[in-house]
Structure formats: C-alpha cells, structure tokens
C-alpha cells in the first residue's frame, strides 16, 4: 500500500494524507491549531519572551496591563513570561512520557499478539496488573521517593504507568491482522518476522499509534501537572503545576481577589491545551477510521 517515494513524493503524500483531511474536518482543525499554538509557544516563545524572576513586592498581584499582559504574581513577577517559559517543560515532559509509553506499548502489544502461547499469557497478565493498579497514586509515590528533578526520569516514571491500555488494544489489532491475507502471503513468500513487523504490521497500526500519541500527551499533562500541583516534585517555578501549587498551597493567591490571575492563567492554559489534544485525537479518529474500515 505504500510505494517507494522520493522526497517530493513524501511531501505530496503528507499533504494528501495528513494536512488535507485536517483542513476538511473542523474538529481536527481546531485541535491542530490549538496544539500548534502551544508548540510554537514552547519552542519559539522562551527565545522571544524574556524571563525576569526578580521579586518586586511593590508590583504584587497587579491586574493585566500593557506591561503585564496577564498581571503579576505574589512576588510582582510577570505571569505571562512564566506561562511561556513553563510551557516548554510541560510539553517536553508530556511528549517524552508519551514517546516512552508508546514504545513500551507497541513492543509488548506486538510481541504478545505475534508470539502467542506462554509469552502472550505472561504479557497479558502483566498488562492486566498494570491496568488495575491506579496510576496516579503510584506515580506520586515513586516521584516522591526518588526525588526526581529532571524531565527525562520524570517522564519515564509517568510512562511506566501509561502503556497498558494501548498495549492491550495493539495486541487485539495484531491478532486480527494476523488473519489477513497479506500477512499470510508475506509468510508464504518467506519474508522474515522483522519484515512482517516493520513493513506490514506497523504501517497498518500507525494511524492508531498517532492518535494514541496525542491522547497520551494529554494524560501525561494531567498526571505531571497534578503531581506538581500537590507539591511533590519541586520543579522550576515557571512550570504550570508549580505555579498552581504556589497559588493554592503556598502563597494563598486563591484567597485574595487580586490573586485570581495567577491561579486562572495556568488553569486556563491546561484546559485549552488538553481540549486541543482531545479535539485533534477525536478528529484524526474520524479521519482515519473510515479508511481503516475499507481495508477490512
């Protein structure tokens, strides 16, 4: 189904298979625009917007103005600067966690579905155990005990508790793909297992993986910000979760009317970001699913 394409071919293919449907489907388009906005904020933002973390208590809890688009925090620091600089950490952790989790899920799901037998029984049992254990408390406990400070290990802790659901559905996908003629044909032709996995199975579950990558980014945001909100992983103070922790538990911004912008700015960004991710994932689902059906 995918021929060998040159560079231009790949671009044209990308246009027809990715960008055109996104323009056509409104929901995916909304999600795409929102997510692109945040990615832009996280990549370019910190280079353009300066960060000044010097406290100036005379500027404490100022409402939005031309000088401070989102007002100032308990220390008189600009909230907009913190949001922009924090977005990089929020998105880095979430994207890393989603990448790790996808890798684990794809490996375990394909191994389990393809090999069957005792390997399948053990991996399925393991998946069930990971699905039963509530992820949030266990992420909290591990993050607290190992006193994580860097995004890479934090993302790894999140990922260990995020892969199970996807692994289970990939296993089911592989089981049904195994029955298909083209896999059988590849087997009869004597093409090796690696050919079957990388050239036949993976391309077929790719849309599924892309959609799950986006939903996982979203759950990683919920989990990572939630853990920081409870003050368990003291990260940079520009991280949205740490901002919320400060507003809620440390400096009491939630109790004073002037502190409202400090609490609402990160809350609003989190909801908008998650809404974008959900919309894009649902939209892509709408786009990919009818095509998947015609294959069957």
């Amino acid at each position: 189904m995918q021929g060998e394409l040159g560079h231009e071919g790949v671009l044209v293919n990308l246009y027809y298979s990715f960008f055109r449907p996104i323009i056509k489907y409104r929901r995916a388009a909304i999600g795409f625009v929102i997510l692109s906005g945040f990615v832009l904020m996280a990549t370019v933002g910190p280079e353009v917007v300066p960060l000044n973390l010097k406290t100036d208590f005379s500027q404490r809890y100022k409402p939005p103005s031309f000088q401070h688009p989102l007002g100032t925090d308990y220390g008189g620091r600009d909230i907009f600067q913190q949001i922009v600089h924090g977005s990089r950490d929020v998105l880095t952790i979430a994207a890393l966690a989603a990448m790790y989790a996808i890798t684990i899920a794809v490996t375990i799901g394909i191994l389990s579905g393809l090999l069957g037998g005792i390997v399948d029984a053990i991996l399925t049992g393991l998946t069930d155990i990971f699905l039963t254990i509530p992820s949030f408390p266990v992420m909290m406990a591990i993050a607290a005990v190992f006193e994580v400070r860097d995004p890479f290990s934090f993302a790894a802790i999140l990922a260990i508790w995020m892969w199970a659901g996807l692994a289970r559905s990939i296993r089911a996908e592989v089981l049904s793909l195994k029955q298909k003629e083209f896999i059988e044909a590849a087997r009869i032709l004597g093409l090796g297992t690696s050919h079957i996995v990388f050239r036949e199975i993976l391309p077929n579950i790719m849309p599924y993986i892309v959609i799950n990558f986006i939903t996982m980014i979203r759950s990683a945001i919920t989990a990572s910000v939630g853990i920081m909100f409870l003050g368990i992983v003291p990260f940079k103070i520009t991280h949205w979760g740490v901002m919320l922790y400060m507003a809620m538990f440390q400096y009491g911004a939630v109790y004073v009317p002037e502190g409202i912008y400090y609490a609402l700015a990160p809350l609003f960004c989190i909801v908008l970001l998650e809404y974008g991710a959900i919309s894009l994932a649902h939209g892509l689902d709408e786009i990919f699913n009818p095509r998947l059906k015609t294959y069957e």
Partner: protein
Amino acid sequence: MIAQRITKRILLSFFTLLFSASITFFLVNNIPGNVIDVLAAQIMESYGVSYDEAKQMAYTYYFGYESNKSLLERYIDYITNIFRGNLGTSIMYRVPVNSIVVHALPWTLFVLSLSLLTGFAIGTLLGLLMAWRRKTFLDPLVTAYASFTDATPDFVTAMLLFMFLAARLGWFPLKGAYDESLTPGFYPAFIISVLYHAALPILSYVIEHIGFWALIVKGSAASVLEEDFVKAAEARGLHERRILTAYVGRVALIPVIAMLAIQLGYMLGGSTIVETVFTYPGIGYFFSQASSTLDFGLMQGLFFIIILGIILANLAVDIIYPLIDPRARRESAR
C-alpha cells in the same frame, strides 16, 4: 464455568496485590539514608540504645522487617506482614497506619459512593433522554459539556470550586469533614454539617463524571433502541416512559454497570487531589500528605489500601455481573 472465570479473576487479583506490595517494598527499600538516620536518632534518645540497635528498631517498627537480613528474607518478611494486615507505622503521626485507615476510610467511602451514585444517576437519565429524543438541543449541549469536562483535570475543577465557592464567596467551608465544635454523633445538626463539608468534594467528582456517564449510556441505549423487542413494544402501543425504563433502560444499563468499578478506581486515584484541595481527612488527603513529607510508613500502607479497594470493587463487579446479565451466564456456559 462461571466458577472458573471467577477463580481466574481471584488469582489475578492476588498477583496484583503481590505486585503492589512488591512496589511498596521497592520504595521502602530505597528509603534515603537520612530519613532512617533521623528515625534512629529519635529512638536512640527515647530508649537509650546504641545507634545500630536504634536503626534496627526503626526498620522493624515502621516497615515490619529487619534491615540486617538478606534482601529476599526482608522481602518475605515485609510481604507476610502486609498480607497479615500490619500496614506499618506512620513516621509523622507516630501511630499504626491501620488506625489512620480506620479514621480516614469512612470519609473517603462516604464521599466517593455518594458522588458515584449521584453522577451515575444524573448521567444515566441524560444519556437515556439523549438516545430517545435524538433531535433536541440536549444532545449537542451534553456532548459539548462532556468534551469540556473531559479536557478539565480534577485539580482544575476542584481548585475552581474551592477558589470561587469556598475562598471568595465563603458559601462553603474551607476545610475539614465536619464542624469541629460539634461532637460526632447521629443527630441532625451533625449530619447537616457533614453533608455541608462534603458538598464541594462531591460536586467536583459529579461535575467531572456526568458527561462521561451520559455519553456511555447514550451509546449503549442507542444500540438497544435498534432491537426488535423495542420496536415490538412500540407497536403494541406501550407508554413511552415504560418502554424507556423497563425495556431500553434495563438492557442498556447492564454493560454500563461493569464500568462502575473502573470509575471508582479512577475516583480513588483522583481523591488524592480533591481531598487535598478541600483538606478533607480521607485516604487521598493522608496519602498526598505522606508523599510530600516522605512519610514512608504511611505512604506504603495507604497505597496498599487503595489498591485493595480497587481490586475488591473489580472482583465484586465480576461476581455480580453474570447475575444481572443472563447473556454473560450463557456465554460462559458455552
């Protein structure tokens, strides 16, 4: 055949518990040296023993194993202890974790069960109505609401409710499970105080879950509406409400009930956030306190209790399900 299925579930539950206990052992085994030093120093002072003895006592007292044994022996000691119901001792509160569980668990169960039932009841009603009357304003409204609450993590909902309804407007209490000036007991003033304090935590869960239940029930009911027996009931001229409750609702709810346990699991996990925001003295509040103060004894004990709760809820659904769904009975008999 049902017995076989349930045996399999019980076996899986046992392994899940064992796995969870292993995680907590792994955590306790990685306890930073300085935490143990502080504990040992306290014991040295109060019992007048040597440092090494004090260290031993700290391990036995807080975590239920002796640190000079081999890793495997420690592991076995720890697991047998926890399976016997000895959940260790809280470092901060200096009491057995069991006694904290006895005080905290009722509050969590109270809030969670009330939230689960309220959210489920309202969501089911909306879902059935959406499936029944397709072309009304209800469907787009509830769908939009559901995708909005889906994008709103529990800490956002809880924090917004706390900020506006409790801190700013002062309509609800800022913390606690009841008015401290009242003595606990079964009299109207106390019960009202308990409900008043539980209102915002319950509201946080309910707001989050109505949309979820509505969409699930709508999907399930929509497929039931296509069935012949519903058309037959309509043809017989039965009253709309009777068709909706006795014919559609009864069948449509069966697959949904299996999700109650899963949802309860999510809520138990989320209780760490909701209870902390409202300083509500349940399991979740103590667990997040234990995590942020590195109270290892309390952390591992409460974690085990949370897992145990989720496993029991799942088991209950597995056992009850064939009783309410004749199809599950028939399929497993095949």
